[in-house]
Each structure stands twice: as structure tokens, then as C-alpha cells.
């Protein structure tokens, strides 16, 4: 009896690991945008939803090849990210920080309602299924494994871009000192737009991975949004390495907590843990004051 129990627990831990990779990718775009522009996109998960709908319609309705539909989805969400900055964030950049938070909350409402209006509340699924991978007594879901790999690859690519390219250096520089970069001949608005597009692109990439695992519906953002913010805050807002670690911690809480109790309890425990950590280290587990 004990033997079986342990195998299932191991499966929960491994699934948590795979979920962690996905959550790490989700938090990456939000952290990038916050680190550079100092704005929290409350509507980040809704951008992912837009990407999921785009992929669904291109692939399942218009019959595009899946990879092409996904590429188009990433580009679309990247464009949406840039547009979000240009038309919504830019006018309030000089306003109080909390207004920036709230204005993207308005976008959340808008996107969620517009999706309901345009696509209805039915759950949609792209209808691609993969056989599970069985290793010994443990089975993995293929999309989760793919997500994990793509998420890690995406993060590595972003890391190299920020470290090795000229543009990436400019982005990192502006995140360190917003005031001085214009004097060095960097156009901050251009960097902001590029960063927003990158953040949107990461949301689009997340959409590609989520669309393989979950049904699409207008409120899906609410099931990923809160957890993504909490991971970012837990890791220290704007701190990508911290967000990466926090994502794996959170995923274990959800997966293992959900294994012992119901799934909701996994979330409750994870959220309580989050609040406790905030009091212990308000700057995030990884951050420095």
C-alpha cells in the first residue's frame, strides 16, 4: 500500500515540476515588463487568452497548420502588447503608479467581456491530443512535457538576448536607471515599445503551450492571472531569476497540495504561503532590498 502511495506522490512532484516550467514562462513576460517599464499588466493573462483564441480560430476554424497558427498567435499578442503600451500605458506613465495598475485592470475587463461577446462562453478546444508517456508506474502528459521544454528554451533565449545583443543591453540598462539612459542616446519610448512587444510575445508563447492543455473560454485569464502575479511578487517584481524559482515552489504547492487534498486546497495553501512569505521577506524570496 505504502509503495503505491509513494509512486503517486512522486508523480505529483514530477507533474508539479512540469507545471513549474509553464508557470515560470508565464511570470517571465510580466517580470520583463515590470522590470523595464515599472508597470504591472493586470491584464497579462487576458493577453494570453487572446493568443489562445487566435490559435484556436486559425487552426481549428480556418485550417492553418498548427505551427503556423501558433507563430501567428505569438506575433498577434506581441503586437497587442506593443499597442497596449502605446495606447493605454503611455498616457498614464506620468500618473500615480496605482493608476497604471488600474488602467490595465480596465483592459482586463474589456478583453474578457469582448471575448465573451465575440466568441461566446462555450469552452473551446483545438482537439489535438497526445498519448501519455508512461515510464514505469508514472505517466506524464505529453503537452506538459513539451511545455516544460519550450518554456525552458524560451527563457534561455530571452536570457541570451538580454545578455548578448545590443538591444538587450539597452533594455537592461534602462531597467537600471530610467533617468540617465535618454542622456546616453537611448530612446526610452522605443525601448518600452520593444519590451512590451517582447512581453506580449512571451504571453503568446505561453498561449501556444496552454492551448495544448486547456479548454479556451473568456474567463480563463482569471484562473492563470492571480497565480502569475503572486509568483512574480514572490520572486520579487521584476526579478526574473526570482520569478523562476518562485514558479517551481508554487507549482509544488499546487500539485502536491492538490494530491493530498482537493485542487482548491492546493491553491489555498499556496496563497497562504505567499502571504506568509510577503511578511517574512517583502522584497521577495530572491530579491535584495
Amino acid at each position, binding site marked *: 500500500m505504502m509503495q503505491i502511495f509513494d509512486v503517486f506522490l512522486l508523480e505529483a512532484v514530477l507533474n508539479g515540476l512540469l507545471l513549474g516550467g509553464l508557470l515560470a514562462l508565464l511570470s517571465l513576460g510580466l517580470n520583463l515588463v515590470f522590470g523595464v517599464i515599472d508597470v504591472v499588466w493586470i491584464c497579462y493573462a487576458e493577453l494570453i487568452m487572446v493568443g489562445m483564441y487566435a490559435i484556436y480560430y486559425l487552426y481549428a476554424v480556418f485550417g492553418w497548420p498548427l505551427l503556423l497558427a501558433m507563430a501567428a498567435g505569438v506575433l498577434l499578442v506581441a503586437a497587442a502588447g506593443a499597442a497596449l503600451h502605446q495606447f493605454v500605458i503611455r498616457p498614464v506613465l506620468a500618473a500615480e503608479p496605482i493608476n497604471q495598475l488600474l488602467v490595465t*485592470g480596465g483592459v482586463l475587463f474589456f478583453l474578457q467581456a469582448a471575448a465573451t461577446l465575440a466568441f461566446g462562453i462555450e469552452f473551446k478546444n483545438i482537439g489535438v491530443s497526445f498519448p501519455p508517456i508512461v515510464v514505469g508506474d508514472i505517466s506524464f502528459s505529453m503537452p506538459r512535457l513539451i511545455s516544460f521544454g519550450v518554456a525552458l528554451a524560451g527563457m534561455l533565449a530571452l536570457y541570451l538576448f538580454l545578455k548578448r545583443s545590443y538591444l538587450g543591453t539597452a533594455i537592461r540598462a534602462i531597467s537600471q536607471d530610467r533617468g540617465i539612459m535618454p542622456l546616453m542616446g537611448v530612446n526610452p519610448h522605443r525601448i518600452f515599445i520593444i519590451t512590451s512587444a517582447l512581453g506580449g510575445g512571451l504571453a503568446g508563447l505561453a498561449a501556444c503551450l496552454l492551448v495544448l492543455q486547456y479548454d479556451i473560454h473568456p474567463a480563463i485569464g482569471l484562473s492563470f492571472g492571480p497565480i502569475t502575479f503572486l509568483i512574480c511578487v514572490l520572486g520579487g517584481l521584476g526579478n526574473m531569476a526570482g520569478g523562476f524559482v518562485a514558479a517551481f515552489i508554487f507549482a509544488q504547492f499546487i500539485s502536491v497540495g492538490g494530491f493530498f487534498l482537493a485542487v*482548491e486546497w492546493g491553491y489555498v495553501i499556496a496563497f497562504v504561503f505567499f502571504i506568509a512569505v510577503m511578511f517574512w521577506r*517583502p522584497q521577495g524570496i530572491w530579491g535584495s532590498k
Partner: protein
Amino acid sequence: MMRALPWICLAALAAAPLVGLGNYPLHMLIQVLLWGFVYTGWSIMGRLGLVSFGHGAFLGIGAYVVVMLWNAYGVSPWIGLPIALALTAVVAFVIGYPCFRFKIVGHYFALVTLALSEIARMLIVALRDHTGGSLGVTPKTALTESAYSLVALQFSSKLVWFYIVLAVWLGGLWVWKKMDRSMARLALEAISQEEDAAGSIGINVTRLKLGVTLISALMTCVGGALYAQYQAYVNPDSVAGIGISLQMVFGVIAGGMYVRLGPTVGAAFTLLLAESLRLMFGNSLHALDSTIYGLMLVLFIIFMPKGILGGALEAVKGKKAASPDVQRA
């Protein structure tokens, strides 16, 4: 004349249902006053820079504790409400004290409180054996024999509800006024502008913030309890979680959180917008109202951050103030 004006308006409001206001407009009026009260409660801390996304939790505690105690043990809402208030105070303290002590402000405060309202929603869903989960719950009716039950706080007449809600709403405005005239508000305003500087001149930052948070949370809890009793139905999404918490914040922003009637105007505006769009387009396009609503919110925050009433008052004042300025120039 100007001093009497609010009283005349109030008398007109109180008399309105007696001169044959229909059932539907009366229902709308009750909703506006009830949510106006909740929004007012939120703004009491929100206007001082404490933007909370956690009020969904307090609303949920008010609604669910009272209904669950009544359904499971037959405890009257009159006893259930104080229990809910006590629980709300404990939760507000447990979240508020460390937040203020460790200077969690701005984005971080908003996101910590967001976690709180999600915890409340998840708990209600997770305890589905007792709470009915996502399907929601209805307080057991006590109206089998008579049209009202004072013990169960259930009334079939909307008129009774109207006066209860009106009284509570006026109570909320009174709290606001008291706050406005207290030294505490000046201190809190100083805190919201420059926390460290305020602390350095001897303001007890943690205590004041905690006080205003408690008042705000308790008001929200009362609002939640009344909402559940009036609607005779609640579900986790309507009284807890991120959705309702955001809705609260946005109603307040639309109306204007820096003036006393602003939150109520926000409640009236959002409800009337939703209802009129629903009447215009029917239920077939049921998300159209939220779409327009979301769009308007974005425009509001960008172009009119003080809200409808705040903006209107400023425009009136601006005209009055403009003439001397012109002379001086």
C-alpha cells in the same frame, strides 16, 4: 438654501417609493444604495492610497458567515453578523498589521490583498460540502407563514429593504464625514504622500492605517451580509475573488473616490449602464455592457482620473475660480 439642499434631496429620496415607484425601479434603487455603501467603504481607505483588491474577502465573509450560520445552526443574522464582523476584523488585522508594519505599499499591497480575496473564493469553493461550492447558496426561507421575519432578517417587501439599505448607506456617509473631519485623515493623507516623513513627525503610521482598514473592511462585511439577505442567493464569484474586487475598485473610480458621494455615483452609473445596455440590446449580447464598461474604465482612468462626480465638481469649481485668475493676470 444651499445648506437645506441635501436634506431636501434626502427627503425626496426617502419619499420616492411611497409615491408609487414601481417594483423594478425600487430594486435598482436598493442596489445602487447597497453597492454605494460598499463602494463608500472601499473608498475610505482607497482614497488614502491604500488600494485594496482584497475587499472581495470581506464581502464574502459577511455574506457567507451569516448565511451558513443561519442555514446550518439556525443562528439569527442578528447574531451571525457580529460573528462575521469579528471574523472580518481578525482577517483585516492579520493581513493589515504585517503589511503596514513592513511597509508593503502600492503594487505590493494591491497584489497581497488580491491573494486574500482569491483565498476567500477558493475556500468557499473548497468547502463545497458546507457552502454549496460554485453553485452558491440560498438562505433557508423563514417566510412560509408571514411576509416578514425580523429574526431571520428576511422581508418579502422591497419597501422594508429600501429603508434598511437607505439607513445603512446614510451611516456609511456619516462615517466618511466623521473621518473627513478627524485629525486621522490629515495624518493618513500625509502618510499616503510621504510615509517616512509622516512617521518622522510622530504619526503612528501602522496604527492609523490599521484603523482605517478595519473601518473599511467592517463596512464591506456589513454590505456583504445585507446583499446576501436581500438577494437571498450568493455564489463565490458574486461576493468573493478577484472579479468582484476589481469591480468594486472600478465602480469607485468611475464615480470618483475623493468626494463623498462619488462612490455612490459610481454605483449608480455602473448599474444604470449595465441595465440600460441590457434593455437596449437584450440578453443576446449580454457581455456588451461589460465591454463598453471596460472601455470606459480605461478612458476614465486616462482622461478623468477623478471620476464623474469628482470631475464635474472640479469643472464647476474651475469656472468659479477662473474669473479672479483672469483679473489677476
